[in-house]
């Protein structure tokens, strides 16, 4: 070996590419190839970088093609047990290894129909596989786009001993404790949603609504991101009285015109002047996890201007993000956080056992979708298995047609490996081509999938079919092809001339028939599992769709209108809201306008759920901890229940004019909890005194009615009890979602509504208008996407199994042609002959189903997490699916077997 000089990066990459060549050639000529490449590289360098790029591309393709070809040649020679040498005796071998490939391609080109059918199947199957692989890989497997993302954790509090809230936010004092803890905890930042981000960049531009996150300093350092322009928050930006500062995301900066001079400029957020201090790079992407609302993706970040020691420990609203020492074990992180939590529990909660816990950044984000994705992923694997069996079966059938050719070439001295290479190469080539086409189909498929997904689906933006996935799919295709070709290749080497010469009637009667029958059994079993999973997920979706969410979404448009305190002081809020509602009501096409602080199925309330305690309620247990019930308190305007079509169970709703005493409407869950067996209408709701000096005389509102719950979180089950408070000057909430009952298409009214709002106050931005029907649809998108995918898989599985059964039965008829002809001649009637074939199908399908049923029970554990209101191993559904599958396959078998009736005994026997 010649001593190596220090090599450039390009040379090292090239040398690595040489690994693709068989060792023999690499050892003999590797250094020469490198030397030649170096000369080329140096010459290309003189012509500039495009020449180098071109050379790099060419060198890659050169190494891949020739390395592959050389490896194929080497493979053959190793099996032959002598050095690579042209085998001139065999017509099928030329002077080059590539020749085999060319021959195989030519042979495939002649069987155009076979190739078309096989490639279509592979394209669809591998395309689906690509989509699923992408989703699972990007959402569950790929690390978050931050350096050492595994060391990032959120910290939450389990409020279990006090109220039913296992994932609650932390107060500032806890943040300080965590920051002071030291040990493995390196950096801790507090994040808070900035409510009501009405943004204006000054000048005449219309105000727009943005989503902003308030953060203590250190967030960007913790996530390992440098600003593209300007700076990020430093220690001087934090604390009371500091000037308002803002860091823009690249996206918002672009939307504002991508002006590099924007840093240092003053903008307005909720009417307060903020100075832009920096712009984040384009690739930065971050989602703030929330304790109560869906994760929030921000357009901008602002500085935390409060003193973390100030708020009381009961007023908690920080999401806490921390980075631990490189590579700390999760157990050590958990222990460190628990230790801080114990201290806080002693100090602030009299040791009632409220714990703090850490959740990995990624796990925290994707936990909710993990079960559904795992099911889809598993279905993808099963589908790939079915493809494998199907391909093997098709290749076997094709090899059987060439039996004669194989036998002759074996007899003329072709080695076993030379005979096996044909079917193997066919399999690999078909698999690779199918993989490539599948990857292309997958690009389109992932786009469709992403468009089907809800916009807040975790890591949705990451679901893109990239090069690594594409290559993985092509490789999977090639592997499938190679595996599938094993059976026919093995079979081809076993063919022997004597078996062909002995008698035409037993032709092909050997191994391949048994193999193909085994494959049909496997296909039936696998497709039963897939079909059952698909049926269950579709049923589950149907349950969800038919679930009564407690309101009627038809024709209702919703608009969020922010009312920042800087523009509208507390004393004027209700008056302002009246004016907005009045303006909306004048738009032609609007039939009624109302508003609420939280909308059904948005999983979000603008107000934190509150622990409500009614000391005089009959439903109390006497245990103060359990009598405080976490409740969604929702402020609404008159007419809300009517616009939303909610069902009144008892009493009345709010009247148009405000009553003298405060009024409330409760939902059935609230009534059930506090007033079991008692008529709640007319009861006074006394809430725990919140202010100093409040007395029992300050009665809460009186219950005027009970409604069915309009579900906020899940479509299929009630959430927390709901308390609807009429919005008055004494009790108001902001911002409000205006709900607008319309005639005709609600979307057409948007411009007029926008103009109406501008007429009330041009400083106020209108949020994105959404119809209630949209909201309902997007709440179910995830389930719908899963159901569509699995149904498609099930459909694909049925197609594959039908193709398989048809092939085997038709093949069986062909193979037994002679035998059947004899039977027909000696007096069997055609029906009996038909029965003979059909009976075989019944057996195959029966065995397949018998094997598949335990498979269903094995899959049920995985499915459970993804199903709602359906048992994963419902015997009724299993039976239904099994019967349908049996009918479909038997019908296919019957049609294939009918070819028996076309047998003309005289002609067959004459020819034989």
């Amino acid at each position, binding site marked *: 070996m010649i001593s190596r000089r220090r090599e450039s990066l390009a040379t090292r990459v090239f040398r690595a590419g040489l690994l693709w*060549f068989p060792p023999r*050639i690499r050892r003999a000529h590797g250094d020469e190839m490198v030397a030649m490449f170096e000369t080329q590289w140096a010459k290309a360098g003189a012509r500039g970088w495009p020449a180098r790029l071109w050379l790099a591309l060419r060198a890659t393709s050169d190494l891949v093609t*020739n390395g592959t070809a050389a490896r194929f040649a080497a493979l053959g020679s190793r099996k032959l047990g002598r050095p690579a*040498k042209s085998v*001139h005796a065999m017509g099928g071998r030329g*002077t080059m290894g590539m020749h085999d490939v060319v021959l195989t391609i030519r042979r495939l080109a002649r069987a155009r129909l076979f190739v078309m059918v096989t490639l279509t199947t592979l394209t669809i199957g591998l395309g689906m596989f690509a989509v699923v692989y992408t989703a699972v890989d990007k959402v569950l497997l790929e690390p978050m786009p931050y350096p050492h993302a595994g060391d990032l954790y959120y910290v939450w509090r389990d409020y279990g001993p006090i109220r039913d809230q296992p994932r609650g936010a932390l107060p500032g004092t806890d943040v300080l404790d965590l920051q002071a803890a030291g040990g493995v905890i390196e950096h801790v930042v507090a994040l808070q949603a900035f409510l009501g981000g009405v943004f204006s960049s000054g000048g005449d531009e219309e105000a727009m609504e943005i989503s902003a996150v308030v953060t203590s300093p250190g967030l960007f350092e913790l996530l390992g991101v440098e600003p593209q322009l300007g700076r990020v928050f430093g220690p001087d930006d934090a604390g009371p009285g500091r000037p308002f500062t803002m860091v823009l995301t690249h996206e918002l900066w672009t939307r504002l015109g991508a002006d590099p001079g924007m840093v240092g400029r003053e903008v307005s957020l909720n009417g307060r002047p903020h100075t832009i201090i920096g712009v984040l790079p384009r690739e930065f992407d971050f989602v703030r996890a929330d304790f109560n609302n869906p994760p929030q993706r921000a357009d901008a970040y602002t500085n935390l201007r409060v003193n973390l020691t100030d708020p009381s420990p009961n007023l908690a609203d920080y999401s806490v993000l921390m980075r631990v020492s490189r590579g700390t074990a999760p157990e050590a992180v958990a222990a460190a956080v628990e230790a801080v939590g114990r201290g806080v529990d002693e100090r602030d909660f009299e040791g009632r056992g409220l714990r703090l816990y850490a959740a990995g950044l990624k796990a925290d984000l994707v936990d909710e979708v993990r079960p559904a994705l795992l099911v889809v992923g598993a279905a993808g694997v099963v589908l790939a298995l079915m493809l494998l069996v199907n391909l093997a079966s098709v290749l076997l059938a094709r090899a059987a047609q060439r039996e004669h050719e194989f036998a002759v070439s074996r007899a003329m001295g072709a080695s076993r490996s030379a005979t096996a290479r044909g079917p193997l190469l066919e399999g690999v080539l078909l698999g690779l081509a199918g993989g490539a086409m599948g990857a292309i189909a997958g690009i389109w498929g992932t786009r469709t999938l992403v468009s089907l997904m809800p916009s807040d689906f975790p890591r949705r933006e990451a679901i893109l079919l990239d090069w690594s996935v594409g290559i993985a799919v092509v490789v999977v295709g090639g592997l499938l092809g190679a595996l599938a070709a094993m059976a026919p290749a093995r079979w081809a080497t076993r063919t022997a001339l004597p078996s062909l010469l002995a008698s035409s009637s037993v032709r092909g009667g050997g191994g391949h028939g048994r193999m193909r029958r085994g494959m049909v059994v496997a296909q039936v079993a696998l497709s039963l599992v897939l079909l059952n999973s698909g049926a269950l997920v579709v049923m589950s979706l149907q349950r969800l769709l038919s679930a009564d969410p407690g309101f009627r979404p038809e024709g209702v448009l919703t608009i969020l209108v922010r009312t920042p305190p800087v523009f509208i002081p507390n004393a004027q809020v209700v008056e302002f809201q009246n004016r907005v509602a009045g303006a909306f009501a004048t738009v032609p096409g609007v039939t009624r306008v109302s508003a609420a602080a939280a909308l059904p199925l948005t999983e979000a309330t603008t107000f934190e759920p509150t622990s409500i305690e009614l000391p005089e309620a009959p439903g109390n247990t006497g245990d103060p901890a359990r009598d405080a019930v976490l409740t969604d308190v929702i402020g609404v305007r008159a007419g809300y229940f009517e616009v939303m079509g909610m069902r009144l169970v008892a009493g009345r709703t709010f009247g148009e004019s405000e009553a003298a005493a405060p009024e409330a409407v409760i939902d059935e869950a609230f009534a059930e909890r506090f007033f079991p067996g008692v008529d709640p209408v007319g009861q006074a709701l006394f809430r725990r005194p919140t202010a100093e000096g409040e007395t029992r005389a300050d009665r809460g509102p009186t219950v005027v009615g009970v409604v069915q719950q309009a579900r906020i979180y899940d479509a299929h089950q009630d959430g927390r009890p709901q308390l609807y408070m009429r919005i008055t000057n004494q009790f108001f909430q902001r911002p409000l979602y205006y709900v607008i009952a319309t005639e005709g298409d609600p979307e057409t009214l948007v411009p007029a509504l926008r103009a109406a709002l501008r007429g009330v106050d041009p400083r106020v931005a209108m949020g994105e208008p959404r119809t209630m029907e949209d909201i309902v649809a997007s709440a179910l998108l995830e389930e719908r996407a899963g159901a569509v995918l699995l149904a498609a898989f099930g459909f694909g599985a049925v197609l594959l199994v039908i193709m398989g059964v048809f092939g085997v039965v038709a093949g069986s008829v062909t193979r037994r042609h002679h035998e059947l002809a004899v039977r027909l001649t000696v007096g069997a009637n055609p029906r009996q002959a038909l029965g003979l074939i059909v009976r075989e199908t019944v057996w195959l399908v029966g065995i397949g189903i018998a094997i598949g049923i335990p498979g269903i029970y094995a899959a049920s554990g995985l499915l459970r997490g993804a199903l709602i209101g359906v048992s994963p191993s419902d015997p009724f559904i299993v039976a239904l699916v099994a019967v349908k599958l049996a009918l479909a396959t038997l019908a296919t078998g019957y049609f294939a077997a009918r070819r028996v009736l076309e047998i003309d005994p005289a002609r067959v026997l004459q020819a034989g």
Partner: protein
Amino acid sequence: VPDAQYQLPLNPRVFAILVALLEGPAHGYRIRQEVDERSQGTITLDPGSLYRTIAKLLDDGILEEVDAPNHEASDDPRRRYYAVTAFGRELAAAEAARLRTLLSRAALRAAR
């Protein structure tokens, strides 16, 4: 001795390499330059394809490795020199004859 006729027609790339080496032994990069020039750029030999072919031709006894000619004081010790064997010569001649026949037939038909 393998029969030259059996390996015809030659892959154009193989033929080009043989023709390039008929003038005398050369190293890989020289072969590449020769072929590039003679074929006016229609045949390009990148390292992978060139050495895969060379390996194959060495195996089949069409090429052999030789010492560097005296007049070429090699600047790169990694360079090795190749020459055409007697069989290789025979093969190249056979291919040339085949091509000549082909061309003369084509010329005859075109003239008619």
